């Protein structure tokens, strides 16, 4: 008898549209199906998501990627990207077996090796110090070798190198950059560049993105700065969410004078220009990561509040909420099982866009010198610092700036793309 009740067409052919197809499958499959419906957009989202994941990984373990610590002074100041630092390097005849300074060591009773240097360049002093250190080491080893080079000083590099060519000196010590820059290699084809006096390969010690005004590695600071940027972005958005969402739910659900009072407060906050509000809060609280997070969170609480309150107001009038009350559900259950799950998707949407915005605001505060103590590796601080040297070292301001653009773009593109994939209906509006 009941079987006859269900004669409704079960498998009636339905027009397949991107909307209905997307709605029918789970989140993971939706992402792959979306490729069909969204075309190029899908790739934007994919690229943006990969970037976001990469940024997050770098932020978690910057030490794995960064060659140096965030504060370490590792090289000369203002070294352009890809340029090598000037280090004292040994120049020897092409057929010489000497590669390291150590190879010049001889037994104590033999004549000391003579090495050519140029007057007025710090290579002589460096050579002296390094030779002394090696000599000290050799004295403690068996074999009776000593390293006490006799240093011959010349007025120019050409004279020093000529001395090596002539055989007056066994080797010359000059700055590595000089050898590369001035075409000396072509001028003295019988000479070759050996290792540096500290035993490293002469081309070592370059910096991919150069060094800054106090000799820190720009790349390392960039990678370590990711951590601060994401901490500020995520924490402030989460704090804003944690306060904004329950307040919005509460105000929207109970309505009345509480709602009006809360909305008044939130709207007043919202009326302030964002950066100015953040500036005033950090100016009062003083620079620290915690304060910058608080300042930015205060900025974004009204965003969540307004969205959630509005959604709650509309969802609570839905028939299914009335239906829930008609089956005996109490207010707490209705909030928890009916209103909250129907409101949260719009919160997820603003969250990722919000993170991007918060990173930008955080960088802006640091740029103005209000955000973080200047010792911390932060993109905003680096941009501010690079701005002073924009003519001597363009790379100091360019790379942190590009990093800010990349992270903000990645987060907003991912956020907006995912919104379209997960809420296909929004696309029509």
């Amino acid at each position, binding site marked *: *008898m*009941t*079987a006859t*009740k*269900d*004669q*409704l067409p079960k498998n009636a052919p339905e027009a397949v549209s991107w909307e209905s197809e997307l*709605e*029918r499958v789970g989140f993971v499959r939706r992402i792959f199906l979306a490729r069909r419906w969204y075309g190029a957009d899908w790739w934007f989202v994919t690229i943006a998501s990969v970037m976001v994941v990469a940024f997050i990984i770098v932020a978690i373990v910057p030490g794995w990627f960064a060659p140096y610590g965030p504060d370490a002074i590792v090289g000369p100041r203002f070294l352009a990207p890809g340029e090598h630092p000037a280090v004292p390097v040994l120049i020897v005849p092409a057929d010489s077996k000497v590669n390291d300074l150590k190879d010049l060591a001889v037994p104590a009773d033999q004549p000391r090796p003579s090495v050519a240097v140029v007057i007025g360049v710090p290579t002589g002093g460096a050579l002296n110090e390094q030779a002394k250190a090696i000599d000290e080491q050799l004295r403690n080893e068996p074999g009776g070798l000593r390293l006490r080079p006799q240093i011959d000083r010349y007025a120019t590099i050409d004279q020093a190198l000529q001395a090596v060519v002539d055989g007056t000196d066994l080797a010359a010590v000059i700055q590595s950059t000089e050898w590369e820059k001035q075409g000396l290699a072509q001028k003295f084809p019988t000479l070759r560049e050996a290792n540096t006096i500290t035993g490293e390969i002469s081309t070592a010690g370059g910096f991919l993105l150069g060094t800054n005004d106090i000799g820190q590695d720009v790349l390392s600071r960039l990678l370590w700065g990711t951590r601060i940027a994401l901490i500020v972005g995520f924490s402030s958005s989460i704090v804003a969410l944690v306060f904004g969402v329950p307040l919005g739910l509460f105000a929207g659900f109970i309505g009345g004078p509480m709602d009006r009072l809360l909305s008044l407060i939130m709207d007043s906050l919202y009326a302030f220009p964002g950066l100015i509000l953040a500036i005033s809060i950090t100016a009062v609280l003083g620079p620290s990561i915690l304060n910058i997070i608080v300042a930015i969170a205060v900025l974004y609480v009204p965003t969540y509040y307004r969205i959630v309150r509005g959604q709650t107001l509309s969802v609570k009038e*839905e*028939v*299914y909420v*009335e*239906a*829930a*009350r*008609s*089956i*005996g*559900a*109490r207010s707490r*259950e209705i909030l928890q*099982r*009916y209103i909250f*799950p*129907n409101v949260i998707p719009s919160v997820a949407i603003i969250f990722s866009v919000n993170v991007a915005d918060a990173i930008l605001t955080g960088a802006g505060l640091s740029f103005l010198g209000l955000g973080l103590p200047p010792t911390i590796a932060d993109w905003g601080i680096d941009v501010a610092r690079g701005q002073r040297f924009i003519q001597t070292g363009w790379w100091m301001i360019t790379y942190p700036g590009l990093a800010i653009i990349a992270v903000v773009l990645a987060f907003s593109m991912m956020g907006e793309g995912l919104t379209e994939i997960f809420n296909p209906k929004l696309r029509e509006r």
Partner: protein
Amino acid sequence: MIDNILYSIRNLTVEYTTRAGSVKAVEDVSMDIRRGEILGLVGESGCGKSTLGKALMRLHTGPARITEGELWFDGRDLMTLPLKDMPDIRGAEIGMVFQDPMTSLNPVQRILEHITETIQTHEPEISDTDARKRAEELVERLGIRRERIMDYPHQMSGGMRQRVMISLALSLRAKLVIADEPTTSLDVIVEAKFLDLLKELQKEFGLTILLITHNIGVVAEISDRIAVMYAAKLAELGDVNDVFAHPKHPYTQALMRSVPNIKLDSGELYKMAGAPPDLSHPPAGCRFHPRCPYVMDICRVEVPPLEAVEGDQLAACWLYPSVLAKSQEKMHA
């Protein structure tokens, strides 16, 4: 005799407070719902029938308020019950089916969760597996395949969703089901099947159903008794056959004539003159008098009470001597 009555409404008045003043959407309505019957409540849009339906569960929020009356349900006066105890009655003893099945289910909950939630709200000691078993039996009884219980509402058709709504009311064996225009958004074929099912369930579970609708055909098809509402007040109440055969109240008469009938070949369809009154400024006396073809002097002044005019059939109209007599009796008393 009193046991025969499941829900007794006495002088119920529901008011909406708006900035423009208060509007009585239901005014001084008294009627009894008998055990095991299907009572059809008809009336045009805005006459207060949905408000009355919701008032029976005290489901009002915001501007609406029950300002007067008693609601005797199964021997208890619901009006004296604290509002916080009402959730125990809702769902467990009185169920409700809403007009639009597309929006009356939570879009983020599976069908299963809807039903088990209802069961576990009222009987928290029932385990998840038992609740699930009960839910599955229930939807199967209503002609939905067992597997579909894990579906979300948007994956179901309108008729199926409406059956899910009924299953919520049945999951706890509610004594009274208030169906608020349950078939309005369904097409005629699905509507017919749904009405059949409703009738079947009523017999099987001994349900009492208050069927609120503006579709007289639906009432004629499945109701035992019919109540006609006009402008916040009851105009007529009686056995469905009696009322259809001999409508007493002029409004009911006009209503019956307005329904297209394929058997009668009277040419043009009857159109009632005038429009329903603005409830914020209702006319004095009988609410229907500005449109009534039999209007008398008394109609413009006195509100007619709802009294028996013939057997079990009640009407609120001065045309009938018994109504006049009853009101005179009251005046003398």
